[in-house]
């Protein structure tokens, strides 16, 4: 079986496309042979080169340079790559000062595996911050991860830092596992969309039906839909990323 990945993005209203600071893996919609790795990261608005950091993280996850079993070490190696890339760039005093503080990103990475001879498999995920995974089967939301209520979103989530993480931070990195079946769908999102998704669920709605229309039928287009939600103040004005995974 293969994983069919559809990815969508839209930068914060008022920002240029080049200022989009989320990142996702794979970097285009495609079919992935199983086992496959999917990720979404969200660079911190307050930091510099956070989009670069988000991009480094999802690439490293996708290329299996970060392993769940040695997650802090893997992230630490990627932080050195971030530092090496920006070290020799010319920087005004205010960027120099901010680089000294390091940069940050929320991250969720998912491993999808296939049970040979069947139309099902297993999944595992690791998350730091408020990028989320939602596992949907038919009319049911089976797993929201790592956030299970809209009230858990905050303005100061734990983020992966290029400056290292202490033991308390590492204890807050969360993992989850489960199994999938043919017909299931996974949605990965950065925080603005994830908050909207959770809030809709809490109102008794089934937001994944709408997401299915957007990701598979592409009606309405992701951009038009997000802009409409922002105008109705149902969605926080932030970078928006949606990655859907189905199986064929």
């Amino acid at each position: 079986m293969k994983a069919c990945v559809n990815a969508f993005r839209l930068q914060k209203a008022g920002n240029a496309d080049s200022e989009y600071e989320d990142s996702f893996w794979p970097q285009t919609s495609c079919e992935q042979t199983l086992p496959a790795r999917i990720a979404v990261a969200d660079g911190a608005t307050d930091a510099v080169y956070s989009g670069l950091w988000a991009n480094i993280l999802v690439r490293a996850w996708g290329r299996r340079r970060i392993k769940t079993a040695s997650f802090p070490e893997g992230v630490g190696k990627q932080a050195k790559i971030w530092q090496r890339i920006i070290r020799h760039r010319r920087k005004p005093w205010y960027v120099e000062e901010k680089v000294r503080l390091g940069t940050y990103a929320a991250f969720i990475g998912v491993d999808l595996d296939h049970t040979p001879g069947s139309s099902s498999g297993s999944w595992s995920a690791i998350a730091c911050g408020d990028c989320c995974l939602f596992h949907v089967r038919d009319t049911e939301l089976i797993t929201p991860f790592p956030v299970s209520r809209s009230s858990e979103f905050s303005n100061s989530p734990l983020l992966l830092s290029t400056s290292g993480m202490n033991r308390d931070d590492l204890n807050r990195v969360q993992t989850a596992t489960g199994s999938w079946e043919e017909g299931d769908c996974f949605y990965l999102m950065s925080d603005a969309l994830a908050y909207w998704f959770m809030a809709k669920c809490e109102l008794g709605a089934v937001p994944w039906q709408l997401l299915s229309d957007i990701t598979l039928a592409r009606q309405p287009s992701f951009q038009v839909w997000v802009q409409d939600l922002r105008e109705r103040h149902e969605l926080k004005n932030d970078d928006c990323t949606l990655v859907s995974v189905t199986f064929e």
Partner: protein
Amino acid sequence: MAYSAEISRNNPTLFVFLIDQSGSMADAVPEQQNRRKADALADAINHLLQNLVIRCAKEEGVRDYFSVCVIGYGNKVGPAFSGSLAGRELVPISDVGNMPARIEERVKKSDDGAGGILEQKIRMPIWFDPIADGGTPMCNALAQAQAIVQRWLEQHPDCFPPAIIHITDGESTDGDPGQMMKAATSLRSSDGNVLLFNIHLSSDASSTPIAFPDSAANLPNQYAKTLFDCASPLTYNMRMMANSQHGMNLADGARGMCSTATWCL
């Protein structure tokens, strides 16, 4: 809900600093006899401007989420930036970031975690130099601030309300500032009234510092009570941030006022 407008490059807000530069600012900071209040205040303003620039900095440059106005009052009243920004009334934060008067190298001392002192060289951008000269024409300064804020609001009617941060060590020498302060805070955008923060720097080392009081009961004199009466109530988000991130316990009704506040410089 008031005070919820998004601050963005399309909808920036304004910070106005009103700085007392009267002769009494040459007095020493209580318990720091080698440091004048004017010097401590200049350090504090430069540090604040540095923080504002850094908050708006991204790798491609400084995003203009704010404009900044610094008005000094003492021997004269007017824009108080030094260097290439001298004379400019309203300065986008990107220009503030890119045009400090100079960058000084200073030594920052901090605990090294092993009982010693760690000395670290840091670069300190300077926009504002200390001045201590003349009287305290607070009403004139407030009138200038009000005019600047009014013009800003005509151009940015839906902005997050401008904030006026007023730092003084003495009483006005050109009239009652209360009416001027109330006139300034009666200005509003569609998101709420202009915010006024009054910070009173005292030379009296025996006074008890008071930060963001919710009543005038413990204030030392009528002058402090006027500054309290005219200061804006802190917004809900400000109180929540002060309580959750700075360990304070501010109640509903806490006002943007600090008294005998040299300790915070």
